């Protein structure tokens, strides 16, 4: 069974259609790279997965459960969406860390607030909070920032901030972690440290969707590539095939060719 299945997503902003019927599915543990030129709808698709945009039509299944159906308005209430979006994590292009909190507090804020909603929270308050902090420290170790635990975001480099943002998303253990051009706001040398984190996550078989302009990274790390062109999926297949010389999609070949120049 697919961990994620998207059927016929469409989305228009005013009279401008941005997504024109997107279908794809993902297996658990897969790393999917979404590539394509600016304005092809990559980011909009990712935002639809995270309920930051509401598709005009279409359905989405996670682990076989219907999570979103554009026909059914009961799926779009704030409270319903809040619970559902926890299947997904999202790492933003410009990090969006909370500036007034330390690195550790950034990681713990959401898990602690969510824990308070659990019926057994009062009885095990201390254990639950300690467990959340332990988990957060573990994640900081994974992204190599244990020593920055009590720093504020403004004291970190862009690459460090993005690694914190990744750890913050992981702290809620989402089924699928999405990245929206995670290295676009970074210098080349800082890009490397973020990509290394993504590599290590891919090795652990975390299910990831990465919108990226880093073709070298996509070809190396992604299991599969989704090439978007003018709001449709123009190519969906193994990354060896996508970046190979015998790629069947002419538009993808010309896109990759234009970047290589």
């Amino acid at each position, binding site marked *: 069974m697919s961990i994620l299945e998207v059927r016929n997503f469409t989305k228009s902003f005013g009279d401008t259609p941005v997504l024109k019927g997107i279908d794809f599915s993902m297996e658990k543990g897969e790393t999917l790279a979404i590539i394509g030129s600016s304005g092809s709808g990559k980011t909009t698709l990712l935002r639809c997965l995270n309920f930051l945009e509401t598709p005009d039509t279409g359905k989405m299944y996670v682990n076989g459960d219907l999570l979103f159906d554009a026909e059914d308005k009961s799926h779009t209430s704030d409270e319903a969406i809040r619970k559902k979006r926890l299947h997904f994590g999202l790492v933003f292009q410009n990090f*969006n860390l909370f500036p*007034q909190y330390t690195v550790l507090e950034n990681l713990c804020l959401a898990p602690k607030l969510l824990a308070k909603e659990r019926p057994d929270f009062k009885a095990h308050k201390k254990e639950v909070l300690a467990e959340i902090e332990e988990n957060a420290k573990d994640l900081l170790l994974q992204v190599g920032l244990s020593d920055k635990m009590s720093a504020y975001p403004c004291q970190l480099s862009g690459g460090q901030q993005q690694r914190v943002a990744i750890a913050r998303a992981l702290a809620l253990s989402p089924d699928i972690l999405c990245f929206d051009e995670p290295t676009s706001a970074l210098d080349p040398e800082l890009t490397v440290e973020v990509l290394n984190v993504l590599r290590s996550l891919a090795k652990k078989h975390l299910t990831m969707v990465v919108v990226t302009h880093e073709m070298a990274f996509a070809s190396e790390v992604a299991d599969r590539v989704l090439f978007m062109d003018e709001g449709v999926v123009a190519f969906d297949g193994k990354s060896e095939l996508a970046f190979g010389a015998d790629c069947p999609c002419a538009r993808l070949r010309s896109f990759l060719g234009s970047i290589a120049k």
Partner: protein
Amino acid sequence: MNFLDITLDLLSGFGISCLLFCLTLLFAIPLGLLFSFCTMSKHRFIKAPAKVFVWIIRGIPLMLFIFVIYYLPGLIGGASVNIFNTIDREITVAMGASQLMWHGRFLAVLIAFVINYACYFSEIFRGGIESISKGQYEAGQVLGLTKSQIFFKVVLKQVVKRIVPSMSNEIITLVKDTALANAIAIPEIIKCAKDMASTQALIWPIFYTAAFYLLFVGGLTLLFGFVEKKLSYFRG
């Protein structure tokens, strides 16, 4: 009257000024927040009246608005008596005081101040809230926070940091605006000094009142500097 008597007399007047100042802040800040949400509402029928209301209140002099609040309830009710004066008379009788008490009129001034300042604050709050990047809200959303959690746990402190300079301006103006209460004969500090001028032919206490304002505003300035410094640990 010696210097000490005059100082004590003015101090009692300044106590009323300070009371008006504190109560205005206490009520105008939450009300201003409510107004700012109304002016940012997606619903036309909330947003438009709120905008018009803020325009009217900010558009008329505070002194005029004090008169409106003071006289209007009586006019609307068709009663020939002013309810605020009635309150004053009843308190005077109840306390057996020799002079007419001022609490009813103080209430009228307080209402005018609270509404007036809530409107000014609402625009400052709106500016602060709208200056927070959409990314902060979205980051909160994808982490599963509710709307109110996003506002109180993520956005509020950043807004406070950004509005401290303009709020300090407005709050310092409020200190001095309390002098307008003497328009309906509330014995705040300038009224006290004026009374001394007329009853005892003493002019200098009027100038002396400046010392009270300067000390108070000086204290506030230090306080705002402290708050700004407290919030300077993050950039946002």
